[in-house]
């Protein structure tokens, strides 16, 4: 069944390539793209079920066995993330079916050619990043998904988009280069790039152990910085609020559901699997906890100061990344499990809020809370108001929605681990989150329309912009997702059990390491020295006896 691991890469690639052959926005492109996303979801669920049964599925690409070749590895965490990616891709694409067409003149919705195939390319990159077991391969998948996201962010070609994308490209390129340099240093130090092999090398601590050397810490911190930029953690988050409010709403939703997750996911892998001792040191010295806390607080304060719906949501993403990192900062299996649950919850809720913002724009022609046109949505579209209310309460962590289950897990594990100040901050930030959600609610939904607009005379919305027709899928998808967050909260049991199993795997990577490469590269080398090709150690490698990669 190892081929199951390759399916989440093959299906989106095929769907994107075949879909791009059709006319932009035509029936062929729509059916192939959405069908591809649905097929990806089916494959992801099959993978998840199988992984949950056996623990790990490893595919050695080209039959070059790890640590020499590239391994695709699915453990429970990875498989859950792939399933989430597929689901988010599907709902965003269904929503985008309407958004890819140019809107009426006044709505300001430009044509976005090839939106759906590019979304499939993005899904391929994200799935690859979640499944790879190799550091350099992770860099390549990062670039695949970044390239797709560059194009997605610029589709529509408005000036605001181009300027936003410029900031996005420059900062993400810097992060990639940091990551790339760190990968080079890691290869120089350990002669291996395979996560499992690397984990085995760096786990040797104590005097003389390579894991305790300052170089290992330097490499780990460089990786942390690179991943931290992708994850939009606080000192380095500026690209996110600068760019997420500009593209099409479906793209905002898809990016917010997936891109920052890839960064945080990589930090989890870095601190638990590839550099366990360094991860431990970062946790014990409180670096991770401080990063988490500062992200939570700064993100939510940024959100409180904004008046534009998508900017509020973008700042909240920063804040929520802090919550996920809090699970890692706590570091117990329960904390990791809660973080995994929070991953799932946040992707559903945050992308749904972006989609609702899109429906608000479609209905009223505005996305700014001080704009009189946006008022009175409660009456104009009660169903949308209900969907927003459920989702916003879920983001704030009110029971019985999924946010409550996620935050409860984090706070409970934090209390168990004695991280009181972190727990206090998390609870306080939850309150501030409620505040900025209430701000959107009271300005856009509850406020009576027409008051200020009548006063200054020119605030009335142009009828063409206030999409007089039904919202169709732009309403259906948010309502379905609001239902999903409710179900995830009410029936959290099976999901939480799954996350607990994933968290246990994260906390103890030994099974992962054994599944991927039973032997250390140097042992393999020593054993094969007399035998056939590849026995000789390449002298070019600076790492002496620790050389991992021989010429195959």
């Amino acid at each position: 069944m190892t081929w199951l691991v390759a399916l989440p890469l093959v299906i989106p690639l095929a769907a994107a390539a075949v879909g791009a052959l059709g006319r932009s926005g035509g029936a062929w492109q729509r059916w192939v793209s959405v069908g591809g996303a649905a097929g990806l979801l089916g494959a992801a669920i099959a993978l998840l079920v199988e992984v949950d049964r056996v623990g790990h599925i490893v595919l050695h690409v080209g039959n070059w066995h790890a640590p020499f070749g590239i391994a695709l590895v699915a453990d429970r965490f990875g498989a859950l993330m792939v399933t989430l990616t597929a689901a988010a891709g599907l709902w965003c694409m269904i929503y985008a079916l309407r958004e890819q067409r140019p809107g009426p003149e006044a709505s300001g919705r430009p044509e976005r050619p090839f939106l759906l195939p590019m979304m499939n390319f993005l899904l391929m990159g994200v799935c690859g990043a979640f499944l790879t077991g190799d550091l350099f391969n992770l860099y390549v998948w990062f670039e695949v998904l970044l390239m797709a996201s560059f194009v997605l962010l610029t589709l529509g070609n408005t000036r605001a988009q181009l300027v936003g994308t410029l900031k996005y490209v420059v900062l993400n390129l810097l992060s990639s280069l940091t990551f790339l340099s760190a990968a080079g240093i890691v290869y120089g130090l350990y002669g291996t790039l395979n996560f499992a092999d690397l984990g085995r090398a760096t786990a040797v601590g104590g005097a003389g152990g390579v894991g305790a050397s300052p170089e290992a810490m330097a490499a780990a911190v460089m990786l942390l910085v690179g991943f931290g930029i992708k994850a939009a953690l606080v000192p380095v988050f500026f690209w996110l609020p600068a760019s997420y409010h500009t593209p099409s709403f479906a793209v905002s939703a898809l990016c917010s559901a997936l891109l920052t997750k890839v960064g945080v996911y990589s930090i989890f892998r870095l601190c638990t699997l590839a550099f366990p001792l360094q991860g431990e040191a970062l946790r014990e010295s409180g670096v991770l906890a401080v990063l988490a806390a500062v992200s939570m607080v700064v993100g939510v304060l940024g959100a409180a100061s904004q008046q534009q719906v998508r900017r509020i949501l973008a700042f909240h993403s920063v804040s929520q990344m802090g919550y996920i990192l809090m699970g890692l900062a706590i570091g117990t299996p329960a904390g990791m499990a809660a973080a995994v649950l929070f991953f799932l919850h946040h992707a559903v809720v945050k992308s749904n809020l972006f989609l609702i913002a899109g429906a608000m724009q479609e209905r009223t022609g505005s996305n700014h809370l001080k704009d009189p046109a946006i008022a009175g949505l409660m009456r104009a579209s009660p169903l949308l108001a209900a969907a927003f209310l459920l989702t916003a309460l879920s983001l704030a962590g009110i029971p019985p929605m999924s946010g409550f289950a996620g935050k409860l897990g984090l706070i409970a594990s934090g209390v168990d681990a004695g991280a009181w100040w972190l727990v206090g901050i998390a609870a306080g930030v939850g309150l501030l989150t409620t505040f900025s959600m209430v701000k959107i609610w009271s300005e856009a939904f509850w406020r009576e329309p027409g008051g200020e607009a009548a006063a200054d005379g020119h605030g009335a919305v142009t009828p063409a912009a206030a999409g007089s027709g039904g919202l169709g899928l732009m309403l259906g998808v948010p309502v379905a997702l609001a239902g999903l967050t409710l179900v995830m909260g009410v029936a959290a049991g099976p999901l939480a059990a799954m996350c607990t199993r994933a968290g246990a795997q994260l906390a103890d990577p030994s099974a992962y390491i054994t599944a991927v490469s039973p032997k250390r590269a140097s042992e393999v080398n020593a054993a094969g020295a007399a035998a056939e090709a590849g026995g000789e150690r390449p002298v070019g490698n600076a790492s002496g006896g620790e050389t991992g990669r021989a010429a195959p």
Partner: protein
Amino acid sequence: MSLVLSITVGVLFATGVFLVLRRSVLRVVIGLALISHGANLLIFVAGGVARVAPPVAAAGTTAPPTQHADPLPQALVLTAIVISFGVLAFLIALVSRICQPDAAGQVADDTDQYAEVRP
């Protein structure tokens, strides 16, 4: 040899960071290009530089010479060069699109469109 290359890496990174911190967008792009060259060279140096035989088995033998170069850093650098080339090409296209003057020959100022309350 490694020392010379290491110093080159340092110079590339330093110049690149200096340029990225400038206000001109074009300098930022050039700075990023220099940093990406620095990163590529860093992988090469970290992988070890030595004057030895290429990792190719001669005709009739099954193994390359005993002393042979490590092919992997070269493969990594090649991949990284291709990727950074693509990203930089995109970035240059983006910058040229942003800096395109309008009919009046003016490049629009980058004001924050949401800074002021609409309308």
